[in-house]
């Protein structure tokens, strides 16, 4: 029988510093390893352990995989000590990921907070590959300070894509910042209600608007409230849930939320699916 726990050797091919504590690594797995946008993998730092990450690269690129990682825990910190040419392990992909067909003909609002933009980059790049299928792509991203904004060089390019906009905010005022200030929900303040009264005024309509959200749990909580208030349908708000997905196989139990395994039923879950939980984020 196949060993579900064996990591596939993967060589670090490139390392790029995105912000003071966020780095993008490009890995080249020695065996075929592909993923869909929103799915995650288990990344092994040899001898240290595993942690779950959603890749940040285009899922249509299959030879290499990029993962954008914030230095916050044991595994991520050990990774910061590694160099180009070193070998890590990867197994996966796991979880449901986004069903891209759900987005056909829709206006897609993408809400990212902090390093939460990393998994969304994978989705954004997949959307760009078929950009004519979507009505609109609105990317709204919040970071703590201007220095904490990741993918700085890409954001300008994304803005130039067809039917695409990019809106940014930082949490607190900074000398080198002339844009919006406030937590990421301020990027929704100007959005008219998606209700009948506001039809025509909003770039989004209640019937065809979807939102894909990724960020720290506290952000998911408040963005969820804000989007529902604006009139997004609960089944059209896709959250990227954060739990301790340890085995990725629906067995170890660490990521369970009620009867759900986030590693299998998630990590992408709609606001409708999590509504029955008292505090899902």
């Amino acid at each position, binding site marked *: *029988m*196949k*060993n*579900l*726990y*064996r*990591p596939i*050797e993967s060589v670090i091919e490139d390392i790029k510093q995105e912000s003071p504590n966020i780095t993008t690594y490009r890995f080249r797995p*020695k*065996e075929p390893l592909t993923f869909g946008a929103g799915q995650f993998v288990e990344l*092994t730092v*040899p*001898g*240290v*352990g*595993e*942690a779950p990450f959603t890749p940040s690269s285009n899922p249509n690129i299959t030879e290499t995989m990029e993962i954008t990682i*914030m230095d*916050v*825990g044991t*595994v*991520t910190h050990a990774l910061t000590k590694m160099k180009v040419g070193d*070998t890590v*392990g990867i197994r996966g992909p796991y979880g449901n990921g986004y069903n891209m067909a759900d987005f056909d003909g829709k206006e897609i609002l993408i809400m990212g907070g902090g390093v939460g933009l990393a998994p969304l980059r994978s989705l954004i790049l997949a959307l760009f590959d078929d950009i004519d299928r979507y009505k609109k792509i609105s990317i709204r991203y919040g970071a703590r300070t201007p220095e904490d904004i990741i993918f700085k060089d890409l954001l300008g390019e994304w803005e130039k894509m067809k039917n695409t906009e990019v809106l940014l905010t930082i949490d607190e005022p900074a000398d080198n910042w002339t844009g919006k200030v406030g937590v990421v929900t301020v990027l929704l303040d100007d959005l008219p209600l998606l209700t009948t009264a506001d039809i025509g005024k909003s770039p989004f309509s209640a019937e065809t608007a979807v939102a894909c959200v990724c960020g*720290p*749990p506290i952000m998911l909580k408040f963005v969820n409230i804000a989007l529902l208030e604006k009139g997004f349908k609960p089944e059209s708000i896709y959250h990227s849930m*954060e*739990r*301790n997905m*340890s*085995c990725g*196989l*629906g*067995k*170890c*139990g*660490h*990521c*369970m*939320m*009620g*009867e*759900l395994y986030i590693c299998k039923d998630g990590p992408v879950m709609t606001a409708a699916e999590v509504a029955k939980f*008292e*505090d899902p984020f």
Partner: protein
Amino acid sequence: MKEVFIGRENLLKLIGRWARNQRVYVPVTFDIMNNPETPDYELVKEEVPEKLELHGACPAQSPKTFLFYAREVVAKYPSSDPEANVEAPATIVVGPRACDLNGLEKFDKVYWSTKHFSEEYDDPFYVEKRRNTILVSVDCTAPKETCFCTMMGGQPYAEDGFDLNISPLESGYILTTGSEKGEKLLDGSDDLFTPVDSGHEDERTRSRASVTAAVERQNAQYAVDVPYDKHELGSDRDAWAYVTQNCVGCGACNRVCPSCTCFLLVDQRAEGGYERTRNWDTCLSIGYARTGGGGNSRPNLAQRFENRLRCKLEYSRDRYGAVSCTGCGRCIDVCMGRIDMREAIKHVVTEMSKA
């Protein structure tokens, strides 16, 4: 299905014959334990131990010990070998009770999922051992004070899920086959058996009825309006905090539980590279649900205690179609805070109905 009668001396001989070709574990009473009446498993070596104990209640450990090791290497890396190469020697486990077999049902659903669901992941380390393990269950003849299988929709004797079942009687045992593997255990040993007569059958029927009645009687005080296995526990914060007050989060209940399936993966240096071990884990530990960034969906012990009981009674039912508490009572036996899960369930349910 085949049934035969066997005396004690011949049963020891039969088990001895099994032990020639495979590992056989039997329940034996140990004097060193605080409670010398609790048997635990011992490997049969040269001779079948005289202290083999098939009467009484369940062995101290659940049979998960044989199928899901407390600690086990699940990967050595770097490696390009996709196969798991599991070592799973043929093993016979004599002694699981009906509650234990029910616990293995949960294991089968989690670890051998293609048996139940399609497109899922089969765990090679569990499945290979499960395939190579023969389960010889035993009817309970005397429940512990902490037994409550009847509260969970179970009964103190098994009717399926075994390869061979032993019903202890005063003069010997009835052996009942439940699978081909079980029938093979009887092959070539006709010299040891006599036919089951109506006297034996009557004795078994009486014994089963009286043990069932005893379990029901001793649990009458814990009954609530709806059976435990059909209950919603509710979220009365004060009630959960009250039942958790003596819990220290040691996780002993998880370890003896026949249906606790959770594990922790740990990586370390090993010869030739690194190895990954799979270790029994406890959902009561604070780090269980903690994520890399320090987030924790269950930071308080009361939340984790609540999660454990709900996992047994509600989440297993909602996901796998059956409650996973089997009423074996081991969690009560080992709790250093002397928490009785029956009292906990009753308290939470009663407080909720008041609200």
